[in-house]
């Protein structure tokens, strides 16, 4: 085995194993794996329209993941990301319903509103942690439940569809509030997503702020002793992460659903956590990994329609991939540890 291949093994092995697991599952379900993979491909990237749809799904996932890179680097488990996406969509929906004027006014306002909604929800979880010592996992989880409650209440209550109240969503937004498209694509959404990735990359790699944030994440005690106001960094990280999640929610509402629905988050918050884990908590790889994940997600909904398979197969594939990647990295570290121990023993003996 060449050195290059050996270095790639930790990355390739999880992919191979995930493929193997999905083939076994497909065979168990009585489907032809090759036909299934072909359908996943053609269903997500097969033609321009499908590609445009896939990219529109990619945008919120990348945005959520970019925000999660910031919170993970600060050592925080931002489980509240789902709620932050929802609240971003809620505030954007309020603007889309209430603010009059042409698209040039409404679209930037919806985005700003999304930022504010997500920001507030992120800051709430951070405030609970900083001022109340509530672990951010449970504070965030609670805020997720609250956000779900709010969105369901709005959809069946004050913002119910004219005539009937149903959980299928609000009235469709007026045209000016729809995210503008060129052909089937939405260059604004794609631009915002790419800007977020690049922005987070530079924030973490090229600024003093990023360096301090990472110090807080790695070792909060030392960071504090070095004179860093750790609480402030926790608040800022959660605020920024929430703001990006809020934009994701805005894109979901104004670009994808064109209305507010209870399932507006699309589960992109939790999926984003998987993306960031697979990207080793750094911004560089989140765009391509998110694309891969979205291809699987969008493609597997095609599977469910054509092969009568449950669309959860996509989630299984993504989960298995991240699990094996984690285990592979752990096994790699384990081998390094035992090898080092062996050499120490030899040296001592």
């Amino acid at each position, binding site marked *: 085995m060449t050195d290059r291949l050996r270095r790639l093994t930790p990355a390739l092995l999880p992919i191979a194993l995930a493929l193997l697991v999905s083939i076994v*599952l497909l065979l168990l379900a009585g489907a032809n794996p090759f036909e299934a993979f072909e359908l996943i491909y053609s269903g997500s990237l097969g033609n321009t329209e499908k590609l445009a749809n896939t990219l529109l799904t990619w945008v919120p996932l990348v945005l959520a993941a970019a925000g999660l890179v910031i919170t993970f680097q600060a050592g925080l488990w931002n489980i509240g990301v789902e709620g932050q996406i929802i609240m971003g969509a809620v505030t954007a929906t309020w603007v889309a319903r209430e603010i009059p004027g042409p698209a040039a006014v409404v679209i930037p306002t919806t985005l700003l509103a999304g930022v504010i909604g997500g920001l507030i929800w992120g800051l709430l979880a951070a405030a609970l942690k900083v001022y*109340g010592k509530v672990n951010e996992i*449970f504070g965030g989880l609670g805020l997720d439940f609250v956000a779900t409650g709010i969105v369901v209440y709005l959809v069946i209550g004050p913002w119910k569809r004219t005539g009937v109240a149903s959980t299928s969503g609000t009235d469709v937004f007026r045209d000016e509030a729809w995210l503008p498209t060129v052909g089937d694509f939405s260059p604004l959404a794609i631009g915002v997503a790419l800007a977020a990735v690049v922005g987070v990359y530079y924030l973490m790699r090229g600024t003093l702020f990023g360096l301090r944030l990472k110090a807080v994440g790695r070792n909060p005690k030392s960071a504090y002793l070095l004179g860093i106001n750790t609480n402030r960094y926790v608040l800022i990280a959660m605020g920024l992460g929430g703001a990006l999640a809020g934009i994701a929610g805005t894109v979901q509402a104004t670009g994808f659903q064109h209305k507010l629905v209870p399932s507006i988050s699309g589960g992109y918050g939790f999926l984003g956590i998987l993306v960031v884990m697979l990207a080793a908590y750094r911004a560089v790889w989140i765009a391509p990994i998110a694309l891969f994940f979205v291809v699987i997600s969008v493609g597997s909904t095609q599977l469910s329609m054509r092969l009568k*398979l449950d669309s959860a197969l996509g989630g*299984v594939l993504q989960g*298995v991939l991240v699990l094996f990647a984690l285990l592979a990295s*752990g*096994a790699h570290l384990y081998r390094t540890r035992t090898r080092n121990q062996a050499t120490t023993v030899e040296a001592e003996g």
Partner: protein
Amino acid sequence: MDTATIASIIAAATPLVYAVVGETITEKAGVVNLSLDGSILLSAMTGFAAATVSGSILVGFLAAMLVSMAIAALVAFASIKLRLDQIAVGFVLTLLAADLSSFLGDDFVGRAAEGVQAFDIPLLSGIPFFGQALFSHNLSVYGSFVALIGAYVFLYRTRRGLELQGVGERPEAAFARGLNVNRLRYIYTIVGGAFVGLAGAAFSLDVKLGWREGMTRNFGWIALAIVIFGGWNPVRAAIGCYLFGALQVLALNLQPTFPGISQILPILPFVLMILMLVLVYLDWFRRLGDRYPAWRRILASDPPSGLGRVFVRD
């Protein structure tokens, strides 16, 4: 409140009692099994499928336990042997197990099945009021009483239970006393997983008889929260479960009164429960214990100090 209401609260809380007892044991030994939400779903599906195929409810319960034990073993292996972040592994397993349950359970959606049979416990069920509330259920519910009391006695009244606590509180000291810290952590993580499996089966073979996608979603997260709410004491945690059960029954009973917001009522117990937890968790609330020492026993909620920390022998 009448007898029937109390009985339905106890029935509704039963799966959570199992889950909370299991997770308390696991966390007391120093390991966080964050995969509960997915574990419960997958074991609920497996339990229902196994019971339907085999025609035996017992086989269903056993299959459900095995699934959750396997997931717990994976969490233990990843955190103890590979020293991976327990939260990360648990989180991935939660999502993975949930999706697996949807994919594999497709054929069992909406199938009819017979649940666990109810029977009165002789004599005890004759006690006025409480007899019918507590002792007119089925084996799944009675089992949760046994699990709860058993876990309490084991943790606080037996030598092995004290060892378990030592492993979670001060692994180094426990090791110095000659305990195999990591082996005990493996054992108690897997034992905790068995209880989580019972929770899943208690849903799909009793409380919410049947299988549909995501039917126990969020109950695992609530169970994890209740473990904290209960200050890592199974009895206090069980009180949290019954409180949550009461909220659920209340939400159900309110539905005819507020038809306009009936879709939001099932979410409210989760919101209220987690708000209560946040309150318990808040610093000022915990400081009440310093001001009123008599309350300390009720308020104390410090996690095992070795929780989530890898024990390295060197």
